[in-house]
């Protein structure tokens, strides 16, 4: 299902998380619509967008859930972690506090998301060079320590935004692909052409599909 309007080989569910005001919604709008709004409204609960990218000869459709950063929304947003295969954990390089908050977000993911979720740490607002409060090295070190991918982006001038999403999606694709090959060898499971959708639309039975997630 859901293949009528556009064709894709894989559908990955991604979540965008991080403190309030770090630029999650703008990263998403830059990626999906190439738009940036300095005064974009605060996200309430969860907002949704999609975009397809080409990687390694495959079309991957990203179903991205942009979550509200405020603490009070944690209960509602954490429900969206379920079934997500990737997460962009965003902080603001000009706000130390948002970098400190990364630890707390990792815990959130550990508590509510699939244990195999691929996480990318994103230091956003790299255009604010004169206000930088978190160095690139600090970010990278933290990412290495927790085995996360790492990138610095600027939604404002579009630096690395496309790369961040594509890199995450490619990483997920490789894992999934590898797993699919392994499972092909080990079992009779063989996805039919065009049916190798990893994360189904929520319309599908969620519980039953979890096995197919990447590892």
């Amino acid at each position, binding site marked *: *299902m*859901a293949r*009528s*309007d556009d064709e894709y080989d894989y559908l990955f569910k991604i979540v965008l998380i991080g403190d*309030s*005001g770090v630029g999650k919604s703008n990263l998403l709008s830059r990626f999906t*619509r190439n*738009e940036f*709004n300095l*005064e*974009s*409204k*605060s*996200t*309430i*609960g*969860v*907002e*949704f*967008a*999609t975009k397809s990218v080409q990687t390694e000869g495959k079309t991957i459709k990203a*179903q991205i859930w942009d979550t*509200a950063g*405020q*603490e*009070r*929304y944690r*209960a*509602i947003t954490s*429900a969206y972690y379920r079934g997500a295969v990737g997460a962009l954990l965003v902080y603001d390089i000009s706000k130390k506090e948002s970098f400190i908050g990364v630890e707390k977000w990792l815990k959130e993911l550990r508590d509510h998301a699939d244990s195999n979720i691929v996480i990318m740490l994103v230091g956003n607002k790299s255009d604010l060079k004169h206000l930088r409060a978190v160095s690139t090295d600090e970010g990278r070190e933290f990412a290495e320590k927790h085995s996360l991918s790492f990138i610095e982006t600027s939604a404002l001038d579009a630096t690395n935004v496309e790369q961040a999403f594509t890199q995450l999606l490619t990483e997920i694709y490789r894992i999934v692909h590898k797993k699919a090959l392994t499972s092909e060898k080990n079992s009779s499971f063989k996805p039919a052409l065009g049916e190798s959708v990893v994360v189904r*639309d*929520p*319309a*599908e039975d969620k519980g039953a599909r979890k096995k197919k997630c990447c590892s």
Partner: protein
Amino acid sequence: MSSTADYDENLSVSSLIFFEPGYWEFPQRKFMSNHLHSVEGDLAGEDPYGFVLADTLAKLNTSEEVMPSSYEDILPKAPPRAAKFPLKEHLPSLSTKKLDPQPDATVRKQRDSNGKEVAEYKEQSNKSDWSFREERSSRSGSFDTTFQSSITPTDYDSDDKQSSESSSFLSKETEAQKETKLLLPEYSCLKKLLQQPVVNVERLKQIAWHGSPRLYRSIIWKILLGYWPNVNSRRTEIVKRKREDYRISLSRAFSKSHKSETEQERLIWRQITLDVPRLCSDYNLFKLPALQELLKRVLFVWSVRHPACGYVQGMNDILMPLVYVLLSEVYQSRNDCSSTCFTMEMGNVTSASIHCVEQDKVLSIQAMDNLSLLLDDVEADVYWCFNSVLESIQDFYTFAQPGIQRRIQLLERLLGRVCPNLYDHFKRQGVELVQFAFRWFNCLLIRELPFPVIVRLWDSVLCEEDGFGSFYVFLCASLLHFLEKDLIKMEFQELILFLQNIPKDIWTDSSVEVLVSQAYLWREMFAGTKSGMTDRI
């Protein structure tokens, strides 16, 4: 069917509580909705009344020529307002005419050129039939101030009023008379009603439900929100006390936050200062620095006084209609406008209301210079009105936001009953209501509908018992019903994108009337009967 008596009784009891002096100081004494919280009885199994009504209604919806009398047959004991719905403009015509046949394209178009969209919307409004909306400018000036002199506790306009009244008393008097003649009987009656020593709130609700004339909107809202007592003689004193109360809270909140602020308060202030500037309204009014400071203070004081809720993103949106309505009153009384600003909506008052808000100068003012002296009082008034809006829906904002979750469950059950096709479609597509309706409730639809539409909706919502906590569920169902024809054709992704960005150019006065009337009918059907259906939809 004997329930109508109960219903009326409830209304009067609730209004007694609602207008009790001192009520606002004790949030814990908040009025619990009969419909949502304390309904007894289980008619869910049989429920013949609801089904019969639903069937009849479905038939009516498919028929283009509906006579008002049919509705009277269905709801024989409904309040008089039920018979006055604009039935000629019925639902089928709306979605087909106004909605883009390719909603996805609409959504994209909106995103790509927001400014353009607004322009188109305005153009469309102008094209509509506003023949009665002539620029009857200056006469309202005297009308307004004269009116204010009799009922407003504020003294800010006394000087202006006297001079203007004495200078051109005669000519303005005749214009006021002219205006009264042009008004529908109901609306000239509104003026009399508000000047009574004791305002008959039930009667006021019956009239204001159809849309408040802009001239009286602020007064009506303040009365309906319970900020102004319905006894005119007590008004000055009570409002003075309330404003003083706010000022004390304000100084306490801020002295505390500067010296020994708690961690929670620090976070609240940080979040508020982050959110208020990105209110991102299309209107200049909300971008004015003085007004943004006002919003921040009101939000902070409220959050500090309600620690269980604190500040939750989206509360700033809820302040917008209140600030606009309260400020426009002050603005009107201070400015000798010669434009449409003073236009008293004539004839079919409700039909003009959206357009009038859209055209209101207040929304585009560039500076608050001549208002700044009055902003203190407005700030206190906004605070108390905001407080009474949130009073009944505090559980929307407490930990894990149980109030919203519960309303979404109610909405889902209601949808299953009133729009079974759409309900099934959502199920098939894997759409969960929480994915879009969460924001609907969290921001009381303010993010979803154009601002003038919200102001008009609130006219009705404020007349409803537990309007924000209960009536809004029906309003959301009505909105989905309104969009059903388009939604039913969409798949998961398109559905979510559409419902998170409902096109804003589909609204006219008559479509809003249908929206709110449909909500009213369902409310009467399921909740007003007091048969416990809201809990059992």
